[in-house]
């Protein structure tokens, strides 16, 4: 009885989470712009792929996400190692400041960066666009990298590094061969989180993009806030499938690994 109740409850929550998406996707095939079904069509998909603005924003989004997550990973890993070597009070102070972009409301981060970039822009004569968005993204991604790498540093046996030095590695070699290897899982998850956050960010991008640079979330905003736009439905269908495939495969891979590990 209890189990059955649980199952029903679970089904209800899943329906709540998935039905809106399924509805959204179903209507990407609707030949007509209203909620009345007017027959099957693929025209919105064709329109989507032919829309050069959307394609450019997709390209921008991917480039920004890739660059921002790579740079944030490098910056964050180095920072995590350095910060770890500070003592007590100073360290927690630095960590607190570093966490500001995470705990602060996104909109406050957004407007504060906008103030900075407009001010700097007027002083040095540049306009907001690709570079300011990139800087902003690195800024909010790096703390996540630090949060993911720091626990790994704590776990790491520092004698490993010394052993490498004793065995004739230069500090740089020891860093790349031993330290990085030990920290890798943390660095990876930090990178992945940065990448997804950067892909999905709307608020901070909105305030730092200037007025011409478009990323996909901003493009979605312009697409959906004026009119019901079936192209947005088509886009969500594609995003949904991409996300689903990635997650299913990663899940399958990890469960196979689990089995292998069990063997």
């Amino acid at each position, binding site marked *: 009885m209890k189990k059955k109740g649980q199952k029903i409850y679970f089904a209800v929550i899943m329906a*709540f989470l998935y039905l809106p998406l399924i509805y959204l996707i179903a209507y990407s095939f609707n030949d007509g712009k209203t909620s009345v079904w007017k027959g099957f069509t693929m025209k919105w998909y064709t329109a989507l792929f032919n829309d050069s603005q959307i394609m450019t924003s997709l390209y921008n989004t991917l480039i920004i996400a890739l660059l921002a997550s790579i740079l944030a990973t490098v910056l964050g890993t180095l920072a995590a190692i350095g910060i770890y070597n500070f003592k007590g009070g100073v360290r927690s102070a630095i960590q607190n400041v570093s966490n500001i972009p995470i705990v602060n409301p996104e909109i406050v981060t957004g407007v*504060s960066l906008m103030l900075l970039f407009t001010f700097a822009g007027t002083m040095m004569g540049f306009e907001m666009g690709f570079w300011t968005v990139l800087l902003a993204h*690195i800024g909010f991604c790096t703390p996540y990298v630090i949060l993911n790498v720091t626990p790994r540093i704590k776990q790491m046996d520092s004698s490993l590094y010394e052993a490498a030095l004793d065995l004739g590695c230069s500090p740089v070699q020891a860093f790349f061969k031993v330290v990085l290897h030990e920290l890798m899982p943390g660095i990876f998850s930090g990178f992945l989180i940065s990448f997804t956050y950067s892909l999905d960010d709307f608020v901070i991008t909105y305030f730092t993009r200037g007025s011409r640079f478009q990323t996909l979330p901003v493009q979605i905003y312009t697409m959906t806030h004026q009119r019901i736009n079936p192209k947005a439905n088509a886009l969500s269908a594609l995003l949904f499938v991409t996300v689903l495939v990635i997650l299913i495969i990663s899940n399958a891979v990890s469960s196979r690994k689990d089995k292998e590990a069990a063997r």
Partner: protein
Amino acid sequence: MKSKKPSIPYLGWMLVFTIVPLLMVLYYAFTDDTGAFTLNNFQNVSDYSHIFLYSLYVALISTVICLVLAYPLAFSISRCTQRKQSLIIMFLMVPMWMNFLLRVYAWVLILQSYGPLDTMLQFFGIHIKLIGNTGAIVVGMVYEFLPIMILPIHAVMSKIDDSLIEAAQDLGCNGFYVFRKVIFPLSVPGIISGVTMVFVPTASTFLVAQYLGGDQLMIGDVIERVFQFNHNTGSAIALVLMVVILGFLVFMNRFGDKEAVGR
């Protein structure tokens, strides 16, 4: 490995992209457009106090609903086998990976007049406006943030050792007592991080009210609109919002430190 140097680039970065922007917000909040010191901006903020209250109110309701929905679900997931758990978590994450505007847009399509839900209700003779009110905003928020509430609660619950529960049962606890004495106290850290992760963005979000709400704006929308023509008042509102949110975080943290068993 003992060097603090690797953190230097990031320390500089924090100074330029975290501290300086916030100082600029502070500066703008306390000056007028000629740059002279003034407190008038805060007087203007008081005109929006009801919007603050409304936002907190929406955030509170959404957070409570999320918690009530998520808690039993997280618990029942955490009692499944490892494989099933990771599968379910994956399915919870799929909607989270979709762009947040598209998710809100899905609800616009569903709740709009002559939309599917409205048509259904009309069929049963019920005539109510589904969109353009606080209820619609709350539904949107719950939809956005439910997975974010489930994940941290599930994370702590899945770490609760089954033998603890069995031990409690052996010692004569009935179901309710097991929950009160074992499961609930151990899940508090998860609840706290879940509540924080939901409350902060719901209180400060912008656009959701524009999509789903009616004539009532939320504080995020007001910040964006005021910033369009008055950086000073806008900064003052952002500053107040930041202080409110930080106050909330400190409050939650105290709560957490005292109650949490192991974090």
